[in-house]
């Protein structure tokens, strides 16, 4: 391989060079800024994790699998997975192979940024370069892979339904410029390399193309314009990149190490939150997933639009989107990148100032002092269970049947667990409620606390510190009672479909235990969308602004999802879901406690009587 130009430079590389320097400069500036926005502790944690061998290997593996191969997307949708990985991995391979070529043939040029990208322009083939044929073949192969991906992307822009996506976000003007320049890059590269293939050499794609072009063009005049066009397309793409969704490419490479370092979002706008906002690729998977999207009026309130408005700094829309969300967590569950939509919303709510501060000094904390001493179980039913009294009654009956000595903490009204306050973004008030409850519970002298509401359970496990007290969800507790033989199951004849409540499933990761429990007592059916994909019942306290009337559509859509199976009744494990579904359902809606109570007998062991 010999060089065509002794200077190793041609002015056509300038657009690419300018774009490249701009984008690198922007990214370095962004990384430094974000590092400074992190708290000292987080920054240290992050930097240490970068040099820890274990996290280092995990970072490399995750970046390779998620950013280049899109493994998660493949698992979800093969067509989309192929489309994205063909472009990302193909492009990566072309850049890598370009560098290998330069290192093999012209190692003295490796310090030039543009050389590996425009290698075929700068070299001419000599007899000694037959070893390059494999590299040339690979180059053409990966270019073909990318072009197939671009072809799919074009089809998807017109008919997204073919790719399993009903709705995609509308791209802004800059995003369109970015998109079309990205589409232009690879066909232009093919053209440019084809025009020079008789000089620089090529493979199965570029050599036949070169032959065809020479049949009717016959001269080399087209060579330079196509290389210029290729360089300009690259330059345009890179200079708009920081202002488009393509910023997710560098941002995701920052997000993955930060997540692996165990960082948490602490500020609504700065640091890790900023990285998440930029890492959102605007794919729009969250639009179809969002339970609110059944109503057209809510289409622009899902996470993809939240990140967009956060980038634009549109405060009015940020507040609107943050307040409307049900915080069901489905967008986070389906997100390929790991944008924590619900958390970002809660933190944005927390930015708001309230003139009236809460004051809970009237709440006495000694009401239960010593009430649960001597191994009694403390039972907390939660506020919402008071609207579904059958849950508390069933729990009471179960405790009696199993011979468990218990103390019902909030039978005649008690203090809220604090989660509604927390999700409303009033973090200080929520902490005050937590403090009150902690005092009450610690004074009761209990060593086990059973919680029957998943909203409260999530709060108790995540935000409370109750030393010496085992907090158990009632599903686990009832299962224990059955296993110990203190409750004897009787099989029921109804077929139940189990609805995963958001806070229990996506919130606490409890999917199998309720099904196992239900399976012991009756036959169960599965809804079309279940487990992590379960649809919010629409009653969620997460939403601040959705009115009662607007929730009906969401509830009906969630019920439709449950109706698809041949179930006689709906089972769930959340008082809020039970109350919400019962309003519109055409078949009975029962909480797990009711079902277990219905289908079990007590069998007291002699030593417990």
């Amino acid at each position: 391989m010999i060089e065509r130009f002794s200077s190793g430079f041609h002015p056509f590389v300038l657009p690419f060079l300018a774009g490249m320097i701009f984008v690198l400069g922007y990214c370095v500036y962004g990384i430094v800024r974000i590092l400074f926005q992190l708290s000292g502790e987080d920054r240290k944690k992050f930097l240490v994790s970068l040099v820890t061998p274990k996290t280092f290997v995990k970072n490399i593996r995750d970046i390779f699998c998620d950013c280049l191969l899109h493994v998660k997307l493949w698992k979800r949708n093969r067509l989309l997975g192929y489309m994205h990985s063909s472009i990302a991995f193909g492009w990566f391979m072309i850049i890598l192979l370009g560098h290998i070529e330069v290192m093999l043939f012209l190692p003295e040029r490796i310090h030039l940024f543009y050389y590996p990208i425009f290698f075929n322009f700068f070299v001419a083939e000599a007899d000694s370069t037959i070893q390059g044929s494999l590299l040339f073949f690979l180059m053409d192969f990966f270019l073909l892979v990318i072009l197939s991906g671009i072809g799919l992307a074009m089809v998807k822009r017109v008919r997204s339904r073919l790719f399993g996506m009903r709705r995609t976000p509308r791209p802004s003007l800059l995003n369109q410029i970015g998109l079309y320049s990205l589409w232009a890059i690879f066909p232009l590269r093919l053209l440019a390399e084809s025009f020079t293939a008789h000089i620089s050499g090529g493979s199965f794609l570029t050599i036949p193309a070169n032959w065809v072009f020479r049949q009717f063009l016959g001269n080399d005049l087209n060579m330079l314009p196509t290389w210029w066009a290729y360089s300009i397309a690259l330059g345009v793409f890179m200079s708009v990149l920081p202002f488009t969704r393509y910023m997710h490419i560098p941002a995701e490479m920052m997000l993955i190490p930060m997540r692996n370092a165990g960082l948490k979002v602490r500020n609504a706008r700065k640091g890790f939150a900023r990285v998440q906002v930029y890492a959102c690729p605007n794919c729009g998977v969250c639009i179809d997933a969002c339970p609110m999207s059944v109503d057209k009026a809510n289409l622009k309130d899902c996470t993809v639009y939240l990140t967009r408005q956060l980038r634009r700094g549109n405060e009015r829309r940020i507040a609107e989107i943050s307040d409307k969300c049900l915080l069901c967590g489905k967008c986070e569950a389906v997100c390929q990148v790991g944008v924590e939509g619900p958390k970002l919303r809660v933190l944005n709510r927390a930015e708001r100032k309230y003139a009236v501060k809460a004051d809970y000094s009237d709440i006495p904390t000694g009401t239960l002092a010593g009430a649960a001493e001597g191994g009694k179980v403390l039972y907390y039913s939660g506020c919402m269970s008071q609207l579904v009294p059958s849950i508390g009654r069933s729990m009471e009956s179960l405790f009696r049947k199993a011979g468990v000595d218990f103390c019902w903490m909030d039978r005649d009204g008690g203090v809220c667990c604090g989660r509604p306050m927390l999700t409303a973004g009033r973090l200080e008030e929520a902490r005050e409620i937590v403090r009150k409850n902690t005092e009450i519970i610690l004074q009761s002298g209990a060593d086990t606390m059973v919680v029957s509401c998943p909203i409260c359970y999530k709060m108790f496990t995540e935000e409370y510190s109750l030393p010496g007290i085992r907090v158990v969800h009632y599903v686990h507790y009832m299962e224990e009672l059955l296993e110990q033989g203190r409750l004897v199951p009787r099989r029921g004849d109804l077929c139940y479909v189990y609805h995963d409540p958001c806070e229990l499933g996506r919130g606490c990761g409890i999917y199998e235990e309720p099904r196992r429990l239900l399976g012991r007592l009756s036959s169960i059916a599965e809804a079309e969308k279940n487990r992590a994909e379960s649809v919010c019942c629409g009653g969620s306290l997460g939403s601040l602004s959705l009115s009662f009337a607007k929730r009906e559509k969401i509830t009906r859509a969630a019920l439709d999802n449950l109706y698809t199976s041949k179930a006689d009744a709906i089972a769930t494990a959340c008082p809020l879901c039970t109350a919400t579904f019962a309003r519109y359902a055409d078949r009975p809606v029962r909480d797990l406690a009711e079902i277990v109570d219905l289908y079990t007998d007590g069998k007291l062991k002699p030593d417990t009587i």
Partner: protein
Amino acid sequence: MTDFGFTLSRSSALDLTKADTRLYERLCSLSPDARTCMGCGSCSATCTAGPYNGMSLRKVILGLQRGQDVRPMLKGCMLCGKCTMVCPRGINTRQLILNLCRIYD
């Protein structure tokens, strides 16, 4: 004065023409459904904070219409949302309370 064993309580009559309802009007512009409240008291019956500090959303709205200070009641609210669930008029009570907490000055 001679102690007859009973006293006359002060008149609880309100002069609504003198009541300062600006806060109520401002609240209604943010949460228009406040106007649909019919004062049934379902919210107060289910209220978690009620037993502790006398919080009652019915009284809060009534107090605002009469230009009274309702802050002592508001302070006890825990946003648990039971009032939203039981409201027969479908008023988004949690949003109403949050709006009220914001605009008070």
